[in-house]
């Protein structure tokens, strides 16, 4: 657990330094999901870093809200998919680390392009069906933003997964209550999301401490035990946008804004370099 906590801090530093270096990108949601990504790749999923697209015999992960690419890239690099050094190319010309994740430049660990919202769950369902057809008992994980649930396609996918008894998929919703224009309740109120998902036929787990590594691992493990029962599983993960950097928390302001030099210094001070070392 201590090693995973170290990962969390180092990933926060990566996120902050990556977006600062190009004065663009999405630190808020990335920081809010750092513990989730660390839990997923550090504890939960069974995968090979010797990447192949089909991923037969491996758990797969699809990031639907592709704008939180900094946390995705840092996690993939820190867990061995590609050299950590490459993080410094984020959002720069000729990089495999595009603003939003893509297969187009051949970055190991990425299985579909995302960024235009609402599409990842459908793709994950397709991959989960392929696993069933291949008699592959590994699981498919996804992450959606809560703001992303505004997109209609998500609800098509939610309906499909339940109607067709897709029980090898675990969907997590980054339930931070914020989107670009403000709080989700003001922009497009999700109302009782738990009830909505339940009414759509999903088993819904909820974790109030979505930035607590141990709690995240526990809820993901619980979700795993609920697979294979004819019902898709969703996790409402209450996260804090900008978690780990005090001035980025409690606001939607850091959704898509990079810190300046001074802000970076303060943020990094709150997350000192670990023995994993900066890239």
């Amino acid at each position, binding site marked *: 657990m201590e090693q995973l906590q170290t990962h969390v801090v180092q990933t926060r530093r990566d996120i902050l330094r990556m977006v600062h270096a190009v004065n663009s990108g999405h630190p808020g949601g990335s920081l809010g999901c750092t513990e989730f990504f660390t839990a997923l790749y550090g504890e939960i999923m069974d995968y090979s870093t010797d990447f192949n697209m089909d991923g037969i015999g491996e758990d797969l992960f699809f990031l639907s809200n592709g704008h939180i690419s900094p946390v995705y890239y840092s996690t993939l690099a820190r867990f061995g998919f590609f050299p950590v050094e490459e993080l410094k190319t984020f959002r720069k010309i000729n990089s495999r680390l595009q603003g939003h994740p893509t297969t187009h430049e051949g970055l190991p660990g990425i299985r579909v392009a995302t960024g*235009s919202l609402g599409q990842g769950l459908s793709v994950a369902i397709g991959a989960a069906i392929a696993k069933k057809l291949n008699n592959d008992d590994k699981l498919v994980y996804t992450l959606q933003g809560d703001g992303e649930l505004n997109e209609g396609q998500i609800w098509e996918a939610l309906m499909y997964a339940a109607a067709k008894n897709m029980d090898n998929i675990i969907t997590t919703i980054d339930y931070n209550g914020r989107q670009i224009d403000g709080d989700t309740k003001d922009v497009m109120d999700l109302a009782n999301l738990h009830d909505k998902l339940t009414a759509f036929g999903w088993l819904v787990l909820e974790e109030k401490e979505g930035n607590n590594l141990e709690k995240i691992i526990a809820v993901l493990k619980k979700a795993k035990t609920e697979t294979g029962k004819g019902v898709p599983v969703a996790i409402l993960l209450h996260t804090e946008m900008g978690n780990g950097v005090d001035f980025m928390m409690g606001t939607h302001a850091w959704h898509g804004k990079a810190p300046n030099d001074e802000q970076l210094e303060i943020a990094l001070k709150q997350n000192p370099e670990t023995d994993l070392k900066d890239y």
Partner: protein
Amino acid sequence: MIDVNYTEKKDTRSGFGDGLTELGRTNPNVVALCADLTGSLKMEVFEKENPDLFFQVGIAEANMMGISAGLTIGGKIPFAGTFANFATGRVYDQIRQSIAYSGKNVKICASHAGLTLGEDGATHQILEDIGLMKMLPGMTVINTCDYNQTKAATLAIAAHKGPVYLRFGRPAVPIFTPADQKFEIGKGIMMHEGKDVTIVATGHLVWEAMLAVNELEKEGITAELINIHTIKPLDEAIILNSVRKTGKLVSCEEHNKYGGLGESIAGLLTQNFPVKQGFVAVNDTFGESGTPSELMKKYGLSADSIVDKVKKIMY
């Protein structure tokens, strides 16, 4: 004269359905999806014979495109079928991001394309789909002319790696290409040699062009006719070789004049061998309800319109 005797009329969508049935029996990786139009797409036999490989997604085309993209991860070859309107315009961003940009081996199979869907009217008569699809990097765009060609194309695209848009239609039309044809993606077919003008036609307009060639011949004009089933990548050589001989070209398609085959040819000619070109295509308008033949006539896509267009650019 081109032999325009035929023994049977059949819809091109049945060629797709029968091709898919054959794939279901021969290629274990082929899976099929449909958005509540299984009968219209002629996918019932595949569904009946391969219930575990057929996925009914309901009236949710965006989700169908995403699921198709995901199915390729694990080695499946998804054939996603619906009407052309819902297979392109409705789901453009899903195709763009999850399929084309992601380089997924998905076959988008679109029936009821163009005006000849008939009485349902303009809401369903997409005339912009070729343009939408050909603009996507890496997308192969195919528009077939009869039952046999559609069946052969369906088999061929399963063996092709990469995203494909396969466009076909609703009405029964004469079968005039051979049942045992070898379908080569990106390769045009010389239907008739001539020296006065080149006619390049795709889809249902190949038949109309055949009738037009015979009409023109009666009037002493010998037209060369090229059947182009693959709009992207375009068979540039067959077109350039022909216009070097004839010096004039008429393109024919059941599509808006903007964004279609004609525009691709115009781009080819201006860069290589500029000649005068006439467009037989829908003149930047929406369609309407009517029978297929009434619509073809009214919107200038019939054999008569091709004859008129040829004469217009010849004299």
